[in-house]
């Protein structure tokens, strides 16, 4: 289909930015999605227009996608498994005398 027009120019859609929004009531910032933008100010505006249309946020962070360093699947064993067998980091590990609230 669609052989009736000129070929579309394959021009840029601008670089990608990751958007983090902070919900009301001081909760931690959360990844909301991404936008395309040429610079920080436009990224901030686009993030505002795209990801806060329903009052979802009181603050926005934008960061160039290329600037994010992420762990890889190969890291997942050495990074996260050691956290699973350290029960002494959890309050339930410790007992207190009956009837005392600590």
């Amino acid at each position: 289909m669609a052989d009736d027009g000129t070929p579309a120019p394959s021009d840029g859609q601008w670089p990608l930015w990751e958007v983090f929004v902070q919900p009301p009531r001081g909760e931690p910032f959360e990844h909301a999605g991404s936008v395309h933008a040429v610079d920080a100010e436009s990224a901030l505006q686009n993030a505002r227009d795209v990801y806060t249309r329903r009052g979802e946020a009181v603050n926005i962070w934008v960061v160039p996608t290329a600037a994010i360093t992420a762990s890889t699947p190969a890291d997942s064993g050495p990074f996260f498994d050691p956290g699973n067998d350290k029960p002494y980091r959890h309050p339930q590990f410790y007992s207190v005398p009956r009837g005392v609230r600590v």
Partner: protein
Amino acid sequence: MPDSPDAITEFEARIAAGETIEPKDWMPDRYRKQLIRMMSQHAHSEVVGMLPEGNWITRAPTLRRKMGLLAKVQDEAGHGLYIYCGTETLGVGRAELVDQLLTGKAKYSSIFNYPTLTWADIGAIGWFVDGAAIVNQTMLAKASYGPYARAMVRICKEENFHKRQGYEIMATLAAGTPEQKRMAQDAVNRWWWPSLMMFGPSDKDSPNSAELTRWGVKRKGNDELRQRFVNLTVAQAVAIDLKLPDPELRPDPATGDWHFGPIDWDEFSRVVHGDGPLNRERLAARRQAHSDGEWVREAASAYAAKHTAAAAPAAA
């Protein structure tokens, strides 16, 4: 490098265990390709889907309707954007995806090749087309690919108002003057069958279904979803006294489902392959917007290149 059988086994075990697949995880090449195809089609559908409804923004009959419709079409731009961004995590840029749409290499939902002839079509689209989309997307919100599933969760949350808006428009028209009721019934007659086609061919004729199901992208079959949509919609039509244009429609006591008549798959195929009422116009409109906007996109890039430091906001 071909995918090793061991890697595929491990991958499928992860899916079977209900784990989500994230962008940097290993995945079979076919999985990546199928997702890019499916997600980009979905995104294209949202974007092309702005056109039939956008056609009535300037003619919406009240201020409330004007704002409701504009907000809805705007959401569709947002949904297209979310899904394009999700697709980009699979290693393909939005420029390339847009190019595939504009050159006709990629498909989009063929329902958007039908015209919106009266205001009632805006009601019918919200009620049927968004209703069908919600059934489909609620399933996709559990898709195995994390970025797709997360986009669907956000979209489902936002899209709830679309269906209610459409149904409210139809209910108002159906309870209105004889001309309005006629408009409403005519829209139902035109949009019902194309809406059932939105779920795609029967699973046994759908080349991609088995693979997508095995890999947890689709959790339910096309026929099952279509049946669910019919079951939900029949009572809604009865409630506002509009007739679904299917003489075979009747409850099936054996299954508890509503039995419906045969779908005209020839029509579906014709529209998918370019001979729907407005295929050419829809793509032409997208191409026009894209080429009219080229100098704007270039200008922003040129400005950013000149001012490499992050731009400070202008005083408001």
